């Protein structure tokens, strides 16, 4: 290994720790961790893993920094808006700790590339924000027998667990066998999240990685930890393997690569046509296009700069007969509910109407695409 010699001064305070010592530091330095998602959970996890001296860290993220990321994604600054998260994160971590190796994967992890990428690392930290990624990471980790440190958040609550860190270990599908029905569980963009919450949960994930690598303490192997920021209540639940889980998992790499995770997790929504901001702006000048806001009553920001109809998703079905235009563009906050709405309309109108969903939602349009 061509890594530089360990700097004792940098890690002195943790080398001092009983049970950790020089041996623990060498174990971190000799290890590699893949962090999937450099968002709310990924930023603090990356920061602490890099600071602690994990020898090689991989960063997977295909997204760009947006203004609405900054209240929780603490590796990024206002100047970084519009830049690739993976690259910016690597730059920050490099200046935090130039002694470690950083690998960036500035694209989406899919079942076509996951086995190769995950195969290069000792442990995977799931810091993603959608079910398709969570299931495809879990299934890859089961196939490759890789320990997986899971973390997920919703509004004021978080979950952390360690999967596959021991023989006959529990995996994510033992807890949640199959993806929830599309649209039944809201993500942060839809439901909101307290900025500090992923800071806590991502930091707990980094803690579990360090415990696994150095053998200190009792990591959450076969356990689920839950935390509520509003009440300070936390629980640890014991998990167990389930017989039926095996039938849900792909058995071979070939079978894994044939699965359509987007379809499994998002259903008909995965084939909805999305419209980018430039095409949307062009559409706004066409009379034949009907623009529909599918957000619920009272959601902010109120849109006044272009004409549109308001048909909240919860009442869209009964209002379908009122949709008369041949081209329809739907929007919501983040582009998730509008995809659902588009799937619903496409199922009704088939090819008789052109149905689009505004990609990234109205927040993205306001931030990046709005005409001057």
């Amino acid at each position: 290994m061509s890594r530089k010699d360990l700097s004792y001064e940098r890690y002195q305070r943790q080398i001092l720790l009983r049970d950790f010592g020089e041996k623990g530091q060498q174990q971190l330095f000799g290890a590699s961790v893949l962090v999937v998602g450099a968002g709310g959970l990924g930023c603090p996890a990356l920061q602490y893993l890099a600071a602690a001296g994990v020898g090689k860290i991989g960063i997977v993220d295909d997204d760009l920094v947006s203004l609405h990321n900054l209240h929780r994604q603490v590796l990024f600054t206002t100047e970084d808006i519009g830049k690739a998260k993976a690259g910016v994160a690597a730059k920050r971590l490099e200046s935090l700790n130039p002694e470690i190796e950083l690998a960036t994967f500035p694209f989406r992890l899919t079942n076509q590339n996951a086995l190769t990428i995950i195969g290069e690392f000792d442990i995977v930290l799931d810091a993603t924000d959608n079910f398709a990624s969570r299931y495809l990471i879990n299934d890859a980790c089961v196939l490759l027998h890789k320990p997986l440190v899971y973390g997920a958040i919703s509004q004021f609550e978080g979950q952390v667990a360690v999967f596959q860190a021991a023989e006959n270990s529990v995996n994510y599908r033992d807890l949640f066998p199959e993806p929830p029905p599309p649209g039944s569980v809201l993500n942060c963009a839809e439901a909101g999240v307290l900025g500090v919450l992923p800071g806590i949960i991502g930091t707990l994930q980094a803690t579990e990685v360090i415990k696994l690598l150095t053998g200190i303490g009792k990591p959450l192997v076969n356990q689920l930890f839950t935390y509520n920021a509003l009440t300070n209540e936390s629980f640890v639940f014991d998990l167990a393997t389930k017989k039926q889980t095996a039938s849900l998992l792909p058995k071979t790499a070939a079978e894994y690569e044939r699965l359509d995770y987007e379809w499994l997790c998002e259903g008909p929504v995965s084939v909805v046509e999305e419209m980018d901001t430039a095409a949307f702006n062009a559409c706004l000048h066409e009379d034949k296009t009907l623009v529909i806001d599918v957000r619920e009553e009272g959601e902010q920001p109120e849109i006044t700069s272009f004409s549109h109809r308001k048909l909240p998703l919860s009442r869209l079905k009964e209002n379908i007969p009122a949709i008369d235009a041949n081209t329809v563009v739907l929007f919501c906050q983040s582009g998730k509910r509008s995809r659902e709405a588009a799937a619903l309309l496409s199922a009704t109108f088939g090819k008789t109407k052109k149905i689009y969903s505004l990609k990234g939602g109205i927040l993205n349009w306001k931030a990046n695409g709005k005409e001057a």
Partner: protein
Amino acid sequence: MKEITVLSFGAVADILGQSNLKLSNLSSTDELMQQLEKEYPALKNIPYAIAVNKQLVTGSASLEHNAIVALLPPFSGG
């Protein structure tokens, strides 16, 4: 009388309108689910894992007096 406590999380707590619920005279998790889903039909639309006394259970589990049942929906956010 047999009493149990139901702890709910995330979207389940939103549907039940509370995170801590006391119920009585329920002998199994299946019975509990039936009663909750009757009272809160929206619960049928979301998945959740069930733990009894902090142990995740598969299928229906029997409930003793003072059992603590946790209803844990998956979170996707990150």
